[in-house]
């Protein structure tokens, strides 16, 4: 259907199937195919079933989802080595919808009155959507689009950064502030971390897409917290790749924050920020965490705060000479994504359907409970596979996988999850203890 390794995203009106946009793969699907994809979904609906996904013999996949009874998003992926998993495609649809709400607000999308106008308006979402489709961050180990946990960096000295951020945010009449170092959340205010994880990820993506821009003032709707009232996202590039963001109401103005607050709060921290940027070049974990040399890559998720951190050891080549040649960092991140997907769709299934957080922070007008529910539907068809655990009353807490490239171990505690890739040289029987020790090394030293 599509060329291998490509993805195409389609948006149509749900009621009449009018195409609104398509993004992704340069070679567009022919109109007749788009029509059929829509038609087969409609046919299902007529029979009282929801068609949510299908897979062809050659590894192509199609995933459908209707949002707000108003717009339908379809993701089509060609087969090939980089074919996206169903989980990833689902996330893509969800993230795309959230992008659209972020930029345009839910009202604009839920009540389509003028199709031509909506088509024009939707163009303003392309930058963010293309950013998601490019999968540009994947080779740097960004996982948030897939895990719906904020990609974080654990700074060596978080204290002073946190204090400064808290007081800076307060001075800007806001409770929502965040410092991004090379695209990762280094510190954030409590309220920022209590935004829905998808929102945290989208706001980071938005702030990261401003290459070179010194500061910005973007109206944003929060897909969960405030889908109908826009807030302002102000971002300031303190140093190249060190960006501080605040989420504000109508005041203060961009100019005021920049001229009166940025310098006075952050100038004393220039060296600390430079230190963070240097650290980020090497690892998202501080130097106090030492990892075994035979660990290829790891992902630790804090399940409570929905934050995640990745690391890949041996960036410094202190490994013994007998170590087998290591796959490229990009490949290791790719394997980590595969293993994450494998684990959450088969074993750690409670992670798969991200339920909305219990406390969706709402800066201004809290959304009514009714609209809240409809914006984060954890509908039954969200479940991706027949559960491994069906018929069992217990939840798996560990899983492993051995491939011809690496060994993988997954571990979950009530608080954390660890996804670990090691060299083949690690004996399989030792994986569990390596994983347990690694998790405590990471969380113990950093309080992550």
């Amino acid at each position, binding site marked *: 259907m599509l060329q291998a390794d490509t993805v195409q995203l389609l948006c149509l009106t749900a009621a009449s199937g009018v195409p609104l946009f398509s993004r992704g793969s340069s070679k567009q699907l022919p109109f007749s195919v788009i029509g059929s994809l829509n038609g087969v979904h409609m046919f299902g609906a007529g029979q009282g079933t929801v068609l949510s996904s299908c897979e062809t013999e050659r590894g192509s996949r199609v995933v459908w989802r209707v949002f707000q009874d108003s717009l339908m998003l379809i993701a089509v992926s060609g087969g090939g080595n980089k074919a996206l998993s169903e989980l990833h495609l689902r996330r893509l649809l969800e993230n795309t919808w959230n992008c659209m709400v972020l*930029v345009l607000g839910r009202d604009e999308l839920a009540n389509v009155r003028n199709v031509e106008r909506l088509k024009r*308006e939707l*163009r*303003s979402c*392309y*930058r963010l959507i*293309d950013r998601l489709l490019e999968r540009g961050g994947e080779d740097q180990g960004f996982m948030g689009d897939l895990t719906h946990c904020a990609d974080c960096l654990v700074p060596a000295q978080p204290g002073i950064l946190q204090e400064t951020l808290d007081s800076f945010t307060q001075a800007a009449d806001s409770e929502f502030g965040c410092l991004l170092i090379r695209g990762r959340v280094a510190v954030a205010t409590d309220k920022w971390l209590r935004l829905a994880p998808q929102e945290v990820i989208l706001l980071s993506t938005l702030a990261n897409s*401003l*290459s*070179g*821009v*010194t*500061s*910005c*003032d*973007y*109206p944003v709707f929060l897909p969960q917290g405030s889908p109908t009232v*826009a807030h302002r*996202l102000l971002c*300031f*590039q*303190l*140093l*190249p790749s*060190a960006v501080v963001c605040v989420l504000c109401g*109508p005041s203060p*103005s*961009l*100019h005021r924050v*920049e001229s009166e607050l*940025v*310098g006075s709060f*952050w*100038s004393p921290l*220039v060296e600390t*920020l430079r230190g963070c940027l240097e650290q980020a070049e090497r690892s998202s974990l501080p130097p106090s965490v030492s990892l075994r040399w035979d660990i290829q890559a790891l992902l630790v998720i804090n399940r409570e705060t929905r934050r995640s951190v990745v690391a890949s050891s041996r960036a410094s080549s202190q490994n013994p000479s007998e170590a087998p040649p290591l796959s490229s960092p990009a490949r290791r991140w790719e394997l980590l994504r595969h293993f994450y997907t494998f684990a959450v769709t088969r074993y750690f299934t409670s992670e798969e359907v991200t339920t909305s957080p219990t406390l969706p922070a709402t800066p201004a007008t809290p959304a009514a409970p009714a609209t809240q529910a409809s914006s984060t539907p954890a509908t039954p068809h969200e479940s991706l596979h027949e559960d491994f655990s069906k018929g069992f009353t217990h939840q798996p807490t560990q899983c492993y996988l051995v491939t011809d490239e690496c060994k993988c171990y997954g571990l979950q505690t009530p608080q954390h999850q660890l996804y670990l890739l090691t060299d083949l040289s690690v004996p399989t029987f030792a994986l569990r203890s390596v994983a347990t020790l690694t998790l405590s090394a990471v969380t113990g030293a950093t309080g992550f």
Partner: protein
Amino acid sequence: MEAVPPGSVIVADWYRNPDSRDFFTKILHKKKRRVFGLLEAPVMPPHLKADTVRYKVFISGKSGVGKTALAARLAGHQIPNMHYETTGMETSIVFWPVKLKESSRVLFFQFQLWDCGENAMRRFDHMLTSCKEQVDAILFLFSFTDHGSFKDISNQMSRFTDPSDRVVRLVVGTKFDLFMHTDVTESEITRFQEVSRVPVFRVGGDVSEGFGEIAPLLNALAENLWHQDCIHASSASLPPQPHPEDTNREVIV
């Protein structure tokens, strides 16, 4: 205020001059333009100390005309090759060293370029207010490939009249590199400059040529802003003028 002729206040093409090298290397990094964070500025050794003067420059023009590309071009960032609607306001900082003609004094001009997407401006009121607040210069953009955008320039300029007249106004024609498709003729430009007495600059194409491509526009901005400040400083000692709002004059461009 009328624009001053190029080279009357500052040394024209100073970037070509060997004595400017110490200053221009400060805005470069590995042969490319250096990106400055808000906490950074060019640092000169003590014997070459130069003051920094800050100005706010608003880039005005309709969607797709090339505002974001111009900001990137002047700031030395990667120029976007896709048209993505700017869904809010963005600012970029440009440092530009200039040598004053009379005193031979060197100054770093720090231009903060303000770029705002047209749709965002229409949907959210605070955007335009914010862009106009304390603005020192406005660049009015048209595209050489869109005659309508050129026709619209006079409209745009009349919408932004500032009664105190303390705003430098320049016109920039973008996409000049696409001369094959040009929609706007030389004689139209000449006539426009004669009537409005506002200079028109042409930009487009590669920036690989170094500073040559952006120097005329940045120098003109610097020169006119400096001139405007000098005039104001010398008139500041005069008795205060009647409040501009009282006179209620209309400006026809």
